[in-house]
């Protein structure tokens, strides 16, 4: 059984909307994330990063190709016991508090009451939401909502983290603390797949990176291999060369 995440020749085209032509969002993308590694998925807007993540979370289904998580299909909802997911835009039912959401997470992940209380307090304090825990989430700032999403992604101690734009909406202090958090999760041996268009994050966090452009894979490898392949010195130049904006 293949360990980790595996995409094999995956194609996905969204339904055509009125007045637009259907364009494939992914064109035969193949990649793997091995257990314990951190893969940064990078690309411009519309490259297919979020599509990869939605496919992995089974929100959408591929037209062709196969996706497996530890050898199993993402459609198997039991797999999500071991996944922590951070959406690009934090979305919660309007009138709930983070404690209501945590109680839902505890029930769906079969956490004992003690474990839930202990883990909730740990993460709420770590992400500085303890004092705001009884306030409705809609009254939070964007950064607080993002941190609340992090709490919900981490409270059940998953071994695989899928993070869609983890730095979205954060101020520089918030970004620094989330970067530190992801680094500490890396050292704990968690498998992390994150997508971003902030290339500094990739440099600091990813063991390997995957560059997507217009639904196609343009590069997969370590940052050093990227520099070697394209003869560049920075990730930004390597990325721009990979998508053909500058000539290597």
């Amino acid at each position, binding site marked *: 059984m293949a360990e980790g995440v595996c995409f094999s020749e995956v194609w996905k085209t969204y339904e055509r909307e009125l007045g637009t032509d259907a364009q494939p969002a992914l064109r035969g993308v193949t990649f793997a994330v091995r257990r314990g590694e951190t893969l940064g998925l990078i690309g411009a807007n519309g490259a297919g990063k979020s599509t990869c993540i939605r496919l992995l979370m089974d*929100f959408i*289904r591929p037209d062709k190709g196969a996706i497996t998580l530890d050898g199993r299909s993402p459609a198997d909802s039991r797999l999500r016991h071991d996944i922590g997911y951070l*959406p690009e835009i934090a979305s919660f*039912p*309007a009138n709930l508090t983070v404690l*209501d959401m945590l109680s*839902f997470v505890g029930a*769906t992940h079969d956490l004992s009451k003690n474990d839930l209380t202990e883990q909730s307090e740990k993460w709420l304090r770590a992400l500085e939401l303890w004092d705001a825990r009884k306030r409705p989430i809609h009254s939070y700032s964007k950064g607080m909502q993002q941190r609340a999403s992090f709490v919900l992604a981490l409270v059940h101690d998953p071994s695989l983290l899928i993070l869609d734009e983890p730095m979205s909406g954060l101020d520089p202090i918030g970004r620094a603390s989330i970067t530190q958090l992801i680094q500490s999760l890396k050292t704990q041996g968690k498998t992390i797949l994150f997508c971003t268009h902030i290339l500094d994050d990739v440099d600091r966090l990813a063991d390997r990176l995957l560059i997507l452009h217009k639904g196609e894979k343009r590069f997969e490898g370590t940052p050093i291999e990227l520099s070697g392949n394209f003869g560049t010195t920075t990730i930004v130049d390597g990325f721009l060369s990979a998508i053909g904006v500058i000539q290597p």
Partner: protein
Amino acid sequence: MKNSLKRISALARLVVVDGIRRHALIGLVVLALGIEVSGLFFFSFVPRDIGRMLTDFIVTIGWCAGMVFLFFHAVQVMSWGEDRRVIHTLLARPLSRTEYVAGVFAGLLFLLLLLNALLGAIGYGVLALIRHWVGEVYFSHLGILEYILSWVGVLCIQAMILSAIVLFSGIIRGGFTVLLVSLTYYLICNGLPVAIEFFKDASPLARKFMVGLTLVFPNFSRFDYKGLIVALGKWPEVTTLALNLAYVVLYCALVLTLAAGIYNRRDLK
């Protein structure tokens, strides 16, 4: 199975807590209660048949409040999934799409039960007080069991409409479109018995077709028991009640199974 029920009830609880805290719903309950209590002030303008008129009034208030709940809250809850991607936050958990459909339906149905119980209890108090004031000459009978039955009937109608809304939310994107289709469904359900009556002299095939349509668009008037509250000794037969209840359970189960099937097959963008 036990774990699945636990997940469904956790989601239902989330829907209930969200609903109870929603200001628009609190406003709806306060308004409906206010209208019910207003019965205490205008009943003296009713010249005769006070009992029948007031029981009709009280149950109709509950029915109207339920309709507002269904078309403006339930439709919105079902579309928060789509419009605001809350569905992604919820389905990122070990929750299957079938459990999602069952959980949201159960939560909304529980809110409807609370709404009917509250309006029913206060409404009964209003009726009992008026009966005490006017005496038995003007308000001869107020059957508690018949009163409860009439509210159960209202809840049955609401449950069927709710299951249809869940189905439409699976098929169609966008809260407003679901609202329009749900209203159309409700109007067809109400209009079909009239159409059947109109076409009673038509060909047998056409009549059978019209009657067959009532399987999809239920005839809600068979769940209207409010006329029994003030009538002595007109309790319907047990077999009729059991058949009606079985019909509601079967209808909701089939429609929700279909909705779950659609949710399982479609992309949740």
